[in-house]
């Protein structure tokens, strides 16, 4: 039972080190700010080169834990995790704005209690693994049920203590769903508005009445851009107001005649159309 527990720790440490190495090598970190609300904070030199070097070292240590049962490897792992616990604790106190970078860019969230507890538990696991008789690859080869059960439980506990998991899920979700800018805030160029208008059924219906090539006025209100053209209807000078949607897709165009300050709903051609933008 005790031996199985120690062997499970070797697997856990190797898995964590390899995952951290992979994350550091593939997910870039955002640069940490130099100050919080105008107050300068201690600078932490965290260049990309240093991150890559650390990732490679962690990968090598993880592989060594898998391949050899030599005590020196276990000792190095214990020292590394103990040092990581100290660093994470210091970061939590001194850099409340920055993440620990334990898993590269996935660890951008500020260091919290969970990260410190996780590092401390991993240090305990590294100390427990000092007496494990087998290398990680041999533990995998034996495929003991008890070891598998312990490893699974520890991975679940590790995941529960990892804020990086939600960031990973969020990134995956964001990659699948492109952010949709609301039409009220979308920067819609005037050329796009005019192109949408000129391709609409409302414009086709009223084009004959429009007497000017250039709009008299154009302005924006939320999801709509209004364009006013001079027009002539039944021998009277009027104005046509087009309301063109600023949405990214399925833009609606509406139109109405205005004469001497009043709407003239009678004798209006069909004035609403929806232009499908592929």
């Amino acid at each position: 039972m005790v031996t199985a527990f120690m062997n499970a720790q070797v697997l856990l440490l190797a898995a964590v080190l390899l995952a951290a190495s992979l994350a550091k090598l593939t997910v870039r970190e955002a640069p940490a700010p130099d100050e919080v609300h105008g107050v300068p904070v201690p600078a932490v030199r965290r260049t990309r080169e240093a991150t890559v070097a650390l990732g490679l070292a962690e990968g090598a240590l993880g592989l060594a834990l898998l391949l050899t049962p030599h005590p020196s490897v276990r000792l190095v792992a214990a020292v590394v995790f103990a040092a990581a616990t100290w660093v994470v604790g210091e970061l939590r106190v001194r850099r409340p704005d920055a993440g620990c970078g334990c898993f590269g860019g996935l660890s951008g969230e500020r260091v919290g209690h969970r990260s410190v507890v996780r590092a401390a538990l991993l240090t305990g696991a590294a100390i427990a693994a000092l007496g494990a008789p087998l290398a990680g690859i041999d533990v995998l080869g034996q495929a003991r049920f008890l070891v598998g059960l312990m490893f699974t439980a520890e991975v679940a506990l590790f995941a529960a203590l990892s804020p990086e998991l939600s960031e990973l899920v969020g990134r995956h979700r964001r990659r699948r769903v492109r952010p949709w800018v609301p039409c009220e805030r979308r920067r819609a160029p005037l050329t796009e508005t005019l192109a949408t208008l000129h391709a609409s059924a409302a414009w086709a219906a009223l084009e004959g009445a429009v007497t000017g090539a250039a709009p008299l006025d154009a302005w924006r209100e939320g999801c709509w851009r209004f364009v006013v053209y001079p027009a002539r209807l039944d021998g009277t000078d009027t104005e046509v107001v087009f309301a063109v949607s600023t949405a990214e897709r399925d833009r609606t165009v509406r139109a109405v005649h205005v004469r001497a300050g009043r709407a003239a709903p009678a004798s209006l051609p069909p004035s609403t159309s929806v232009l499908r933008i592929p």
Partner: protein
Amino acid sequence: MPFPRRRADRRRRHRETAPGHGAPPPVLPDRAAPPLRIVTGTLLDASPHLLIVATASGEERLTMTEATTVWHGGRGGPAALRPGREVIVRPRTDGFGADRVWVDIGRVTGTMLACGRDTVEVDMGPHRGRAHVAVPPQVLEPLLVRHPRMEPGYLIDVICVGSPDGPRAVRPGTPQPGHRADDLAAPDPAAPVPPVLHGTVTWWGGASAPPPRRRGLYEDTWPYTADVLPPRARLAQLAPPPVTGREAHESLLSLLDTGDVPGPGWDERAEAEESPTWREFPLLTDGGAAYPAVDAETGGGCADAPSGCVPFPALSLGSEITVHNRCGLRTATAIVVECGCVAARYCDRCVECGVSPRGRLAELTPAAFAALGGDLETGCFNALVRPDVGGSLMRGSAVRW
């Protein structure tokens, strides 16, 4: 005012006649008083009991009482009321006499360009130019408490008093944001736009500040001449303040029945024929607003300005926003007369009568700010702002103030 109101009214009429658009949603504050009538102009004469002010519409005589307070770089007495100075007068709520008199008050808000020993050069944005603010030693100390970063690249917001040498700082307007002017955390691009924004509203300019110079599409097209108020607005100035938006509408209708003399201006004949536009809240007839998200495509906006601290819907010059002062419980509609490029760089709060959420929603002209019950020397009020975009988007939203 910079943006002709007739043109703004015309736009509003056009918008409302378009199919699918209509009046703003029936959102009414539970307790909202109308705006106060502010007198702005040059002091002609002052005695212990009477103020005579030359305004754009003529000479105004205002009664001074023992309760009237005078501000001139701090609490001032009658000695500050010298002829030739620019004043902003807010009447008492009962309409009898002047309540507050601000003399030569001004405000400088923007990005610091250079900081000398006793002067600061400030970039107030592309629409307002630059200003040199004198900072006396006795003001520097309290200023540093709320503006710890007096360095180029950081924002500054100070209440000033006019002097022959230019604006002189008196006190900080609001606390300095910790970030640099160009380092604002914008909201998520996909963040939805709430129908009513909650944040802080400030003011800009001053009693003696020249009207802002407009550039771009509108340069020299609509010059900054003294704007002739539209008939309804002029009558509203003469009428006693109505209590609700509906009453305001009815009182204006009754006044219009008595006849009106339209002034000269653009398409005046058509304007005189049109029926009055119903407004849910009274229109601020003396002043307007600088709104942070003015559409750059249709002129007047700032193409390189940040998107602001909160998700703003895009508007144009001449659009309308309804502002509710949560401190003074007054509500009114203001016309957007300028792009609030500077306000867009602020992500601050107002701590008057409660702490507002972050975000500078609008800057008002001094008269509009005071009309809504704001104290100019305080600098801000906790506010709700509803951009009046109309249409189906806003209609039906059950928001109550």
